[in-house]
């Protein structure tokens, strides 16, 4: 059977490789100058006073894609919560405090606030400079988990009321949707960025609803990443199967 798989793999892989290489040779040369959609996107972004065009595409021009993306994250987190729940034949055993070398501990406690602030900064400046809700959210969430290294699991669990993060995650998704639905109530298109003033170019409040949607995403990603990491940590550290099962 294994032999059959290797044969299939060889045939299928070779066929796909030929197809892909032939396609690559027909592609426009790397670094070409023709990007019609991209040029339009830059123009539209400047029209709406959003300095970071990528943020404008993500949260204004193609905000509907981002809605799908955040729903994927939301669904995956919900899925992980459901899949990694404590099964009927499992129990929790509080882990013994692990020995962490003192320099590591100091380093972790030192980096933690810096990383948290960096995360928040990156979220806040999403529409101006590279970065945004997504990147900042992950940084902030991962930073929180330095506590596991810096202190111990108990300390981490105390500053991490999971229920609160799950609720925040869901509320952030709701906020994004409500921001999208408000224009429909006002008689225009879903997720239209036409209700708020676009502000002064290159300031924190520029871009209409872009900063608001960006903040919602930041909140969602940060809490989603915390919940995800927490459930995997729980599995790795705390949840044990009943012996003899």
């Amino acid at each position, binding site marked *: *059977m294994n032999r*059959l*798989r290797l044969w*299939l*793999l060889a*045939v*299928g*892989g070779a*066929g*796909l490789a030929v*197809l892909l290489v*032939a*396609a690559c040779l*027909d*592609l*426009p040369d790397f670094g070409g100058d*023709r*990007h*019609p*959609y*991209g040029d*339009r996107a830059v123009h*539209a972004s400047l029209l709406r006073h959003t300095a970071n065009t990528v943020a404008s*595409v993500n949260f*204004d*021009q*193609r*905000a*509907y*894609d981002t*809605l*799908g*993306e955040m*729903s*994927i994250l939301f*669904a995956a987190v*919900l*899925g992980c*919560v*459901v*899949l990694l*729940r*404590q*099964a009927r034949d499992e129990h929790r055993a509080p882990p013994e405090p692990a020995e962490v070398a003192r320099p590591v501990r100091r380093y972790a406690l030192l980096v933690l606030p810096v990383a948290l602030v960096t995360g928040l900064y990156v979220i806040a400046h999403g529409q101006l400079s590279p970065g945004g809700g997504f990147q900042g959210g992950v940084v902030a969430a991962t930073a929180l988990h330095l506590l596991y290294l810096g202190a111990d699991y108990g300390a981490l669990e105390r500053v991490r009321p999971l229920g609160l993060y*799950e*609720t925040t*995650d*869901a*509320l952030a*998704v*709701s906020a994004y*949707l409500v921001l*999208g*639905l408000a224009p*429909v109530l006002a*008689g*225009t*298109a*879903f997720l239209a*960025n036409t209700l708020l003033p676009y502000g002064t170019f290159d300031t924190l409040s520029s871009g209409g609803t872009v900063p608001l949607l960006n903040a919602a995403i930041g909140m969602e990603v940060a809490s989603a990443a915390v919940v995800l990491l927490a459930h995997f940590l729980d599995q790795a550290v705390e949840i044990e199967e009943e012996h003899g099962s």
Partner: protein
Amino acid sequence: MRHLLPLPVALPLLGAALLVATGRRLPRIAVEIAGFVVSGGTAALTLVLLLDSAPTMTEWVGAWPPAGRESVGILVVGDGPALGMATLASLLTLAALAYSWRYFDAPPHGHTGAFTALMLVFQGAMCGFALAGDLFNAFVFFELMSVVAYALTGYRIDEAKAVQGALTFGIVNSLGAYALLLGIALLYARTGELAMARIGHGLDATGPGGPDALVLASFVLVLTGLLVKAAAVPFHFWLPDAHAVAPTPVCMLLSGVMVELGAYGVWRVYGTVFAGPGGIPAADLTRALVALGALTAVTGAVMCWYQRHIKRLLAYSTVAHTGLFLVGLGVLTPEADGGVALYLLGHAGVKAALFACAGALLDRFGSVDEHSLHGRGRPLRATGVMCAVGALGLAGLPPFGTALGKAVTEEAVGGPLTVVYVAASAITAGAVLRVTARVFLGLGPRPRDAEYETSGSDEEPETTGLLSRIPDTMTTVPAVLLAAALAVGVVPGFGTLVARSVARAGPGGAHAAAHWTAHGVLLGVASAVLAVALAGLAVIRPDWTSAPGWAAPLRRLQSGHVGDYVAWLLVGTTVLGALALPGVLGS
């Protein structure tokens, strides 16, 4: 009105988010009522939009109307087929929620709303995919649909088979989705656009000499993603493994509409992106879809016949029927498209009802195994009757909607392919009838066990403990679904209405009608008679119909090994490329 088009996506998502936010404090009954209201409200909205879908509604999300012909926004298309699929998905979600009402296993502690919320997200994702007029946006909702489906399939984490099936499902479908995305990137490189219609124009403008290797590769990659979802041979291996183990309400959605959305995606993407002179010639698409579709129908039917795990048997019958849909879509005539649409509607009702009946067996006896349940189903009269009726609907007995759709498609396809339609529907229906006769009537001797198979005994019921009687919701829901499948064929003018709205959305814009014809009725009756005969033979003479030697290699291919499935996926892309190659070489 057109501003409401994205709402069938937004409303269920909002409902799900609010349910998760408040779910831990609400009692279960409140959560279920809320889920029911949101899902039902969305279904009503899709229906209202559907009634208003002529002429086609389009909406640029984010209020980016095109300047000239070009926009930076995302297009949502509300034509008959798109809103029809969204309505079907919404109504089936509603049925699945009603089916799981109160009796479905207790939700995880502290997450009362989790199951309902996941179902709502699933509904929103399916609506989003159906309505997408932008290729990347379609990918996003395709992926959302997949992610929710993985989680729902593995929902019963105590079941060894469930988590394995869910992982196989996840890996194969994610790989398919990445192939789809590679295809989108190639199309973007060529045309610099993402809206489907604009990509189509771009291909025609840049490739007046006909398609080249780039177009072929993007076609193959995009179709790989969609056909993995539609479970065409040889991309189909994940489906029986996943559909057989998912919770019953989820099975109803997976088999009833998600797989069909893959076939719908093929129709939509070919029609808007690749149908022009710069795309893939019609003859090549017909060759590829008819070949793969017929192979899928035959493989699905044969594998369906040899199953003893009832849900797995139903899953293979879904494979067989999607094969039939693909053949119908492959011939590229408005009549066939209309027929497939009707067939798909009827099939959704019948298949969901059959899964609901299998679920009732599981919750009553803790088994879905044809052999071990032999004769034990006698007390469940209503479920047994519905199983038999559902099987006849699957065979395409007039006046079921499946029969009307099948007849119209057969007529449009014509020729020797009619045999495939009759055979595949008769064999799958025969298998279900055989199960019905053995389980609910206790007919015939108990069959012997085979060597290489999946048994369905020793399963955990999906309810809290075994049920002593089947609750009313679990009998009402399949009854309503069967009645709906019947109504598709019976309500006068409905067939023509569907056929017209599909034809209007197609490239030709032609007039189409769907009527009962003597020819079609005869073929439908023939399938049903054949199914009954096959089932009777199997029950009376089990040895004659047990797996012969030639079927064994086919069964061994379904190895349950995810590595094999990945290898087959690569082979499938190669086959697809080879089937579509002549048109590229000829240009």
